[in-house]
């Protein structure tokens, strides 16, 4: 009897389930696992983990049925990979949400990611590879009352590791596409936007009266005409002292940021000119906390390189204050011309330069008041400079080649938060050749040779990579980074990595062994950001 009841139960469940499926309900998601073993290496200062093996994994599940969607993410850190913060510990379901849309209104409860404009005043996002995740937990509403008008508002708390910061974040944003909203048949398209975000945190400071509600707002404008596109955003953050107990420590100045870009493009040619100015603009979910609590995003105004030695000395935005400019030019030399050859040649030029604000960022308290000049470049401390040219050419049906030359200046003291004057600026010259040769259909060999010449920092490096791929399932790669120019002879080391992988459809398995430096790691046709490591690694990713 009991058996029969069980059968009936299973049957009705299966039937119900299949009806649900029939009505359009779908379940999808993805799974990711990164396992790493650690070996001690005294020379490079690598520590062995007590656990020997560390493992990060997560599974996303999304259920969708018509305009309803719900989902969750299971995260597992047993224990977290070495470059991840210790606070990622154990298992949990830190992300779950439900959302529906009806008559233009979208309601989300639980966790969500959101961005206001370019992110200058607010951005919650995740980058699992780097351990970044400041998801919100609360309520979000999006509404489009008329074509071309987009409104959203949200409230919630911001995630840091497995907990939520103390501040309550409230936000609203309106965007109007004037052409759509007013039905304008104009060649020029104009989009305007206004965002407001505010954080509430009780003031329990015994000595100072701190603002409990801290607002930040931004205005943005986008004008498009034919091949031209201008985009600008200006943001202000009201005074937000950290809450120190000394009268020197608190800075009551407002912060501000401006970013602006102008692009022009047509077939075979594109140019991007960008600038940004950032002054005391870090916005955190909790007063007096570290960078894990940042809730805004000020994009770094330099090129995101993927060749290892180009990315050895990467730039990062100094949210306290910097001024930067960047230019990109994309050009395709036509087929059949002298320089273009049979298949054409592609050129990509990039220049960026970041420097300090005049006499530092804005500061205001009873003892000191300072507002930096709006624009000052000459004579200011250089943070970063990069000038690089990439040439891509298909030589014949079998051979493709990419060459890059670059010159970079990297202010190691500022960008790595060291005491001023310790290392100074690392000047490097970099050259790269990347050649791929198709042996026969589906079988390709690719060779990368990279050279970085520098006196400062860790000195000069060479790198070689050989990759053999068999489409569509297999890849094998071996690479060696050699720090031959290190000033300490004992640190003139080889960083050898061997990787191979198998991929089929939605599944990918990669096994590796060796020493990796932190950065973007591109191997076997996939790019991902990885922390530094030394030992065996296993990575599985799958989506369904």
């Amino acid at each position, binding site marked *: 009897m009991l058996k029969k009841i069980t059968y009936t139960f299973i049957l009705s469940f299966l039937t119900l389930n299949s009806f649900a499926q029939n009505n359009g309900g779908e379940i999808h998601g993805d799974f990711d696992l990164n396992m790493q073993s650690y070996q001690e290496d005294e020379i490079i200062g690598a520590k062995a983990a007590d656990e020997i093996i560390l493992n990060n994994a997560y599974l996303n599940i999304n259920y969708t049925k018509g305009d309803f969607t719900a989902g969750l993410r299971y995260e597992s850190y047993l224990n977290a990979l070495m470059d991840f913060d210790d606070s990622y510990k154990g298992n949990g379901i830190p992300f779950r949400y439900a959302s529906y849309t009806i008559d233009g209104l979208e309601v989300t409860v639980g966790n969500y990611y959101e961005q206001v404009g370019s992110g200058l005043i607010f951005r919650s996002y995740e980058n699992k590879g780097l351990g970044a995740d400041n998801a919100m937990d609360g309520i979000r509403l999006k509404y489009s009352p008329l074509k071309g008008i987009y409104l959203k508002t949200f409230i919630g708390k911001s995630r840091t590791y497995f907990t939520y910061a103390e501040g309550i974040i409230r936000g609203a944003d309106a965007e109007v596409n004037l052409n759509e909203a007013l039905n304008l048949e104009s060649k020029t398209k104009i989009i305007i936007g206004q965002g407001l975000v505010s954080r509430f945190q009780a003031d329990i400071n015994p000595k100072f009266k701190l603002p409990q509600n801290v607002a930040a707002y931004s205005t943005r404008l986008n004008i498009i005409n034919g091949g031209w596109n201008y985009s600008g955003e200006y943001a202000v953050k009201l005074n937000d002292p950290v809450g120190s107990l000394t009268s020197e420590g608190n800075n009551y100045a407002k912060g501000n940021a401006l970013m602006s870009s102008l*692009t022009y493009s047509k077939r075979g040619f594109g140019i991007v000119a960008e600038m940004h100015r950032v002054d005391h603009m870090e916005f955190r979910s909790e007063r007096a906390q570290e960078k894990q609590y940042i809730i805004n995003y000020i994009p770094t105004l330099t090129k995101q390189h993927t060749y290892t030695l180009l990315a050895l000395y990467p730039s990062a935005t100094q949210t306290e204050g910097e001024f930067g400019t960047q230019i990109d030019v994309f050009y395709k030399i036509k087929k059949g011309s002298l320089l273009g050859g049979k298949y054409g040649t592609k050129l990509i030029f990039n220049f960026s330069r970041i420097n300090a604000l005049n006499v530092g960022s804005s500061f205001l308290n009873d003892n000191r008041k300072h507002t930096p000049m709006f624009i000052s470049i000459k004579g200011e401390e250089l943070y970063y400079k990069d000038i690089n040219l990439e040439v891509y050419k298909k030589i014949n049906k079998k051979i493709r080649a990419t060459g890059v030359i670059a010159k970079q200046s990297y202010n190691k003291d500022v960008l790595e938060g060291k005491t001023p004057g310790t290392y100074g600026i690392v000047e490097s010259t970099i050259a790269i050749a990347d050649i791929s040769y198709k042996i026969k259909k589906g079988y390709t060999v690719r060779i990368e040779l990279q050279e970085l010449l520098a006196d400062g920092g860790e000195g000069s490096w060479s790198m070689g990579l050989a990759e053999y791929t068999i*489409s569509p399932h297999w890849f094998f790669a071996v690479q060696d980074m050699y720090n031959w120019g290190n000033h300490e002879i004992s640190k003139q080391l080889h960083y050898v990595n061997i990787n191979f992988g198998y991929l089929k459809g939605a599944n990918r398995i990669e096994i590796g062994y060796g020493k990796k430096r932190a950065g973007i790691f591109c191997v076997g046709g996939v790019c991902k950001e990885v922390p530094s490591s030394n030992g065996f690694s296993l990575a599985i990713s799958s989506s369904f």
Partner: protein
Amino acid sequence: MRKLFLCLFATILFTSLCIAQNRTLPSIDVKTLEGGSINITALENNGKPIVISFWATWCKPCKKELNTIAEVYEDWQDETGVKLVAISIDNSRSMAKVAPYVNASDWDYEVYIDPNGDLKRAMGISTVPHTFLLNSKKEIVWQHKGYVDGDEDELLEQIKKLAH
């Protein structure tokens, strides 16, 4: 007992049929290169196959895939009527470079931007490139992670299966 088995068999068959149904695109807005937004479910190709390829201006294998297909895209279109939709996951750091890069590269693809990863998450993508193939009913029938030289041949074979 026999009835029960029969019933069980029928249910399992029915269920597996239902589970085997193809997945559709999630209802998520992406940005157009003209600053507007479009819901990804509104993609259309008059019943012909659609390829959706996730990429970024900083991703070498992604650009390699899309540049390689660009060389043969006209032939693919003539042969199968396929449309390729390239979705960039560049965020506000490199978003401004997307349109100039696409134009300078002479791509004839439909290009959209997913700046905060909303569509990327909804479609279960952890790394780029990631390519999906949609049939006439805009159901996802095939997908592939990564790109190595020659992967475009398998994609074309899959498209042909749908197109004939």
